[in-house]
């Protein structure tokens, strides 16, 4: 259950709109279903009262939206940031992607977000989901109410949450948390322990489901080039089916490589993937390697830190040594 209530956020946003600090609010809005929450811009307190939501399905990271939003007006925009969003926020500031002066950031604590895909495995015909303490009450169309353990239904990225601490905000609502000692590299280690054939089969199975919707690119707060090759309508990438699986693998390797060293591990790529491909495992592999080769580095932990890719030391690991580790799987 989230520590703050919707009313608390509404009240604070209404105050700030009232006194003119901000003239619009970046918040979450109900989509087609109650669990289908989408980001939205609210212009007034009344608008917010009508459709603003805050709950267990508000996973969307607003940092990237600030790039477009801050360009629209000279006035400040209010953004609610969960701890993991603040890392992306800092990373974008490091890259000078938006004007800090035009944002009023409110840090809000997060108790983890629920993954609707996990609930779907347990219940059919979901009408709505209510949270009651550490239980989820799922109202279904045909089977009545189903009660589930909230902890078990958390999104994968939230079960291995790396930090409850806000690294950037103008104002904090609720209690400040701390950096968590998470087991987020366990999944990566599990794949590393496989044989090359198993690894290849695993990724072939996952990545061949890719339908090239580019949702992972669109949502990624690190992927913010103004002109992307995939936006070119004449490139022909979106109107053909893949000839074989490596096309997908190539896309995803390069996508992960482009954000390596800048990825804050917010996990949005996997959240939005309509094919449920665990894309964060590619990014996490880079983070794990960077940590072990060049020392611990958390992108976005502070503004202005130098990413490992644009840095070097004379005694860096040789590429041949980098892949020799754990040679038992060669």
């Amino acid at each position: 259950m989230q520590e703050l209530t919707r009313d608390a956020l509404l009240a604070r946003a209404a105050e700030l709109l009232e006194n003119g600090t901000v003239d619009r609010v970046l918040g979450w809005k109900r989509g087609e279903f109650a669990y289908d929450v989408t980001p939205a811009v609210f212009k007034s307190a009344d608008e917010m009262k009508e459709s603003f939501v805050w709950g267990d399905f508000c996973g969307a990271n607003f940092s990237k939206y600030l790039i477009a939003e801050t360009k629209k007006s000279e006035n400040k925009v209010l953004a609610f940031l969960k701890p993991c969003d603040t890392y992306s926020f800092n990373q974008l500031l490091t890259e000078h992607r938006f004007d800090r002066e035009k944002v009023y950031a409110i840090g809000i604590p997060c108790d983890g977000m629920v993954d609707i895909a996990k609930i779907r495995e347990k219940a059919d015909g979901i009408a709505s989901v209510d949270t009651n303490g550490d239980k989820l009450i799922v109202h279904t169309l045909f089977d009545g109410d189903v009660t589930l353990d909230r902890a078990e239904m958390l999104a994968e990225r939230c079960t291995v949450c790396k930090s409850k601490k806000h690294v950037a905000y103008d104002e904090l609502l609720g209690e400040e948390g701390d950096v968590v000692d998470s087991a987020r590299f366990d999944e990566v280690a599990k794949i590393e322990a496989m044989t090359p054939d198993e690894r290849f089969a695993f990724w072939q199975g996952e990545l061949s489901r890719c339908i090239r919707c580019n949702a992972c690119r669109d949502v990624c707060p690190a992927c913010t080039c103004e002109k992307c090759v995939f936006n070119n309508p004449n490139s022909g990438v979106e109107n053909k089916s893949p000839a074989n699986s490596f096309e997908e693998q190539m896309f995803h390797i390069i996508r992960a490589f482009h954000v390596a060293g800048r990825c804050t591990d917010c996990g949005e790529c996997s959240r939005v993937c309509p094919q449920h491909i665990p894309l964060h495992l590619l990014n996490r592999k880079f983070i794990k390697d960077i940590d072990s080769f060049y020392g611990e580095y958390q992108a976005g932990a502070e503004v202005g830190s130098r990413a490992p890719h644009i840095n070097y030391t004379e005694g860096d690991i040789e590429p041949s040594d980098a892949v020799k580790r754990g040679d038992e799987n060669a």
Partner: protein
Amino acid sequence: MHEINSNEFISKEKVSTETFSAEINSENKPYKPLIVAFCCNWCSYAGADLAGNNRLSYPADVKIIRVPCSCRVNPMFILRAFQRGADGVILCGCHPGDCHYTSGNYYTRRRMALLFSMLDYLGIERERTRVEWVSAAEGAKFAATMNDFAEKVAALGENKRLEDLRCKN
């Protein structure tokens, strides 16, 4: 108009006979891997030159692509080479500290360490990729490296995991 068409016809026929004879040969000849070597202009390319001047032999299937600096090589180049049918890709540059542009190969080293580790993570054979530092004075090292690399790649056989069928003739 007619002439162009007939020329096209002739050239197509020629290609098909060539592929046919290549198929016959492939049954008799031992498999030879196609290797792409990215060599930096200032050290490794000169090293390859020296190997030639000294009459040191290395496999003819090593195709050298000259780049201004090893850090010119985008990870995409390496994947693209594989996609287009390379069986192994080797990247050669100046020794760390000797870069013509002071620090280019330091960046190469970081980038390739991460890329190769990622390819390994995706189950691509790790012997197919390599980074080797070859100076302009190391003709012998260049030839030895290429011989060794070609041998290792030949042992792995044809690259099936990374190829893209549309890119092959």
